[in-house]
């Protein structure tokens, strides 16, 4: 790696140096194409974010793709119901690596206000890994942009080589996850233990 002093020294002389990784990550983070996929209330805020006032194009993320094959980012904007969950997982599987997931709003993170419903999945992280969670019901468009900036920061820091390399650079990691099936009372299985590792409830001891 280039050390920072040398780099800034070179920069002053008009020579810009970047590692391949930096360049690669810069390119990816500046053109995050989201999947055009709205589930519920938050989708309207997502559209508002893409519209004139908030203008997601400033972050290179305005190209909403209707096909998962062309998308890098899945913004799960709204309640994931149990009837919808297998389809969300399937869409995620159809996206090409590198791919990222933003859980937008309380419902996508944890089921939110609807978590007591019989048909509501208590968080999409039961089946697919979530990169950034944005709380709010719905989050303001600015909050979505903040989450997007956070995701861009995360992408900047991802390594392509070495032991800590990102999932998409690591062939050993699964790129797609099993799709749950509809059961008689619930989804089967109700969660994917390889993805979902909940903390024990804080209150059991008390």
């Amino acid at each position, binding site marked *: 790696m280039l050390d920072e002093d040398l780099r800034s020294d070179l920069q002053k002389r008009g020579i810009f140096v970047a590692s391949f990784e930096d360049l690669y990550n810069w390119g990816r983070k500046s053109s995050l194409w989201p999947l055009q996929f709205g589930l519920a209330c938050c989708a309207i805020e997502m559209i508002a974010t893409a519209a004139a006032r908030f203008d997601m194009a400033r972050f290179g993320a305005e190209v909403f793709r209707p096909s998962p094959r062309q998308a890098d980012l899945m913004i799960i904007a709204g309640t994931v119901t149990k*009837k919808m969950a297998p389809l969300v997982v399937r869409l995620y599987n159809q996206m090409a690596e590198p791919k990222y997931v933003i859980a937008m709003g309380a419902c996508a993170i944890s089921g939110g206000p609807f978590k007591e419903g019989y048909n509501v999945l*208590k968080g999409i992280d039961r089946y697919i890994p979530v990169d950034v969670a944005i709380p709010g019901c719905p989050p303001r468009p600015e909050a979505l942009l903040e989450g997007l900036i956070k995701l861009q920061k995360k992408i900047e820091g991802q390594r392509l080589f070495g032991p800590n390399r990102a999932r998409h650079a690591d062939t050993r990691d699964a790129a797609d996850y099993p799709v749950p099936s509809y059961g*008689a009372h619930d989804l089967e299985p*109700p969660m994917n233990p390889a993805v979902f590792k909940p903390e*024990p*409830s804080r209150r059991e001891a008390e």
Partner: protein
Amino acid sequence: MNDVLEAIRTALPQAIVELVNNPGPSAQHSLLVGRKDARAVAEFLRDSLGFDFCSNVSGVDWPPRKVKETVLNTEMVDGVEKEIKTTVERDVPGYLEAVYHLYSIRNKTGPVTLRVRTGDRDADVSVHSLTPVWKSADFQEREAFDLFGIRFDGHPDLRRILMWEEFADHPMRKDYMAPDDFEYEPTPHDKILAKVKARTEAA
């Protein structure tokens, strides 16, 4: 509501129709129609009284319950007529109910509320579908079938509408138990804590 009832009684003397009183301030009384007569009454309401718009179809679950009733009896006690209040506890068997709210767009009147009850909640859950009379009842009757388990005979396409086909329960019933699929509750309340406890004890 009473004139509607009178009109039905005159036109269809053999139909079982009774007035269900609504004690609340809204005073929207309803007509309880016998299961067999629902179709005939509905067609009469649409064709002769002009209730051409079926606005709302809703299932209601009434599990078996105990009703306390105060009965006033006049008895002769020591030669004097006295009114004696006795509280009687009566078992009411459970049933499911389909409630239809009808309006007349032509005459701009309404609502007329029709109620149709099933025999019980398990085996005898059929009522006549009113979808052939009002097309708008189509999806709503399917919903009542899905969530309450009311079977509508004569419905053109009676399938589950909101839940998936393999789903076995009727979740809007009062005794439905949601699946045990909580894993992590940072702010659990008694209900969840009891579930956690039961699960750890079972393990």
